[in-house]
């Protein structure tokens, strides 16, 4: 064994010992596919780990208004997160929600943003529909969850939840139009768990 290889091996061992000293096993991911029955796209399903508390991020999340659409169409956040609503269109936009405590942030011109902190949710998940009074066809969703262990499916239905500590969990799913029952999942250290969902009406 050359001297350089030996040094690398020592570093890896030391890193492992450091992690063990911190008391945490390496986190894993949950992956899978969501099938949205009858819809032309499998996107926009939020798959989340239920029943585990978390903390909101320090930085605000962003929901943009681009080409007369809310982008992203579905934005999951941890309860307590502040979301900046930005208008990137040349036309004025409004943001309001008819759900839960209901709010109307007003109407503002291009380039400006307004914020709202999603601090309340009695029963997770809380899905806040985002609407624009100026353009009634616009629709987006902010989905308030307990923790940051969530993923959003793409058009093919693929999702990934990264950084899940080993353990047994209940995996829920939220979709703008369809539903599915939660599923149990067991996450083992360093080994991705696979859970698929089929959504229906």
């Amino acid at each position, binding site marked *: 064994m050359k001297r350089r290889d030996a040094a690398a091996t020592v570093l890896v061992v030391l890193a492992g010992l450091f992690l063990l000293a911190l008391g945490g096993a390496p986190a894993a991911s949950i992956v899978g596919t969501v099938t949205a*029955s*009858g*819809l*032309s796209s499998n996107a926009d399903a939020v798959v989340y780990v239920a029943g585990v508390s978390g903390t909101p991020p320090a930085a605000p999340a962003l929901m943009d208004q681009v080409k007369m659409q809310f982008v992203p169409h579905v934005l999951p956040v941890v309860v307590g997160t502040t979301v900046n609503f930005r208008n990137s269109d040349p036309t004025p936009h409004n943001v309001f929600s*008819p759900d839960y405590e209901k709010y109307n942030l007003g109407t503002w011109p291009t380039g400006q943003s307004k914020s709202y902190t999603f601090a309340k949710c009695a029963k997770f998940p809380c899905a806040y*529909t985002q*609407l624009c009074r100026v353009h*009634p*066809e*616009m*629709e987006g969703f902010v989905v308030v969850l307990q923790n940051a262990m969530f993923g959003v499916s793409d058009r093919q239905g693929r999702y990934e939840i990264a950084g899940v500590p080993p353990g047994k969990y209940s995996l829920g799913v939220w979709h703008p139009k369809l539903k599915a029952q939660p599923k149990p999942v067991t996450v083992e250290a360093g080994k991705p768990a696979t859970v698929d969902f089929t959504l229906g009406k």
Partner: protein
Amino acid sequence: MPSVAAVNVRQRHPIVQVLAVLVLVSVSATVAEAVPAFARKYQTSCQTCHIVFPKLNAFGEAFRLRGYRMPRETEEMVKEKPVSLGAPAYKRLWPKAVWPGEVPSSVPLAVNIKFADVNTSALNPDGTVTSVKNDLQFPQEANIFGAGTLGDHLSYLTEVTFGENPDGSVSVELEHARFDFDSPFGPEDLLHIRIGKFAPNIVDGFQEMWISTDAAIDTTFAYNPVGLAGGTGLAGDLSPAPIAFPDRVRGIEGYGIIKHRALWVAGLVNGISPGANGSFDGNSAKDYYARFDYKIGGMGLDGDTGGKPVPDENWRDDSLRLGAFIYRGDGSNIDFPLAAADGSTVNVRDQHFLRTGFYGSVFVGNLNVFTALVHGSDTLQQFDPLSSVLLGQVAPTYYSWFAQADYLIYPWLQGSARYETVAPGDKSVSSLRTGTFDVSALIRANVKAMFEYQRDLRQGENHSANVLVRFAF
């Protein structure tokens, strides 16, 4: 004040009436149509819904009855995505916001055009024969359709027909303009509410009877019930037509499907039109009608298959459908001036009239046989046109029936034979009896050629042979 029909209804010699009907080949309109706007919306062939268009298969009938929605329709089946007129969440904001809806992403227009080579022969009262040979009616008629859905619970159909007359003038008719509320509440398809000008569902479901879809000699619809001693024959080109059994109405209709198999229909409509003073209604009284059908076997009326496999050949639907219908009309205060035998004029009113009937259709393999029987009773009162004194009253009855067999030889080729008869209310006039034979060939799914021969079975000099080409896009 009594209204007077705009065109006098004269007593006609029965042979003249037959001539009028044969001439109708060139001017009549159709009930059932093909609407390629749906082919574009779903990116599917005409034959998804039609056998030999416009005849519908069981799936197409379900599509029609469900308000132009496919059975178990899902978002992914609609290839031409509609334009949202509001996010669904606005439903929760109503009445503080407009209820959301949709419009098609492109204007859902469709065009039907027909060319006809018309040959007719008719015996005149003086014994001479009037014949027309190879009258190339190119085009014979053009129809422009708009049809589709406007979101979850709304649908519509409009149809404007253009006909070019021999003198160069153009006739235009708004044949359909209707708006439907589809399953506004309750179980799906149990209730549809239709308003506008439309073919009532007592007629519309029979659309496949229009064998030679451009020959409107149809005993159940075209009979003229008004006469001094009862009706003598078909209404021909009279306008306004006294009601035998209306093919178009202005009014409101409710219909629905019960447990996949039963169809109910109830309607309230203007009745005889037009009236005096520019109104559409001949009087203030409304006509009403009802129908009930039940289908045994085959696909459900809403497209339900009960989980059972359906035939590979989508024109097959081994089944029996039976129905009964009733139409009650009120022609009070509507005068039809008639010429009496002495040359004087008498105003005749059809005070009230009743049409009842039965309908049956059976599919076995490639064969479809269907029939309808209509019995009519009228209360005809005669008035002096000057003094309005009641001169007399008769209560004639008539009946008519037809039977037709369609056989699909190949998916693109259909042969049909039809017999129909009318026993007029005026018993001094013998029954009308007509036979029709038709061969229809799909050159393409949306291009059809037809050869048709029609014959007055009482008088062989009265006959018609036509070749038609029809295409839709």
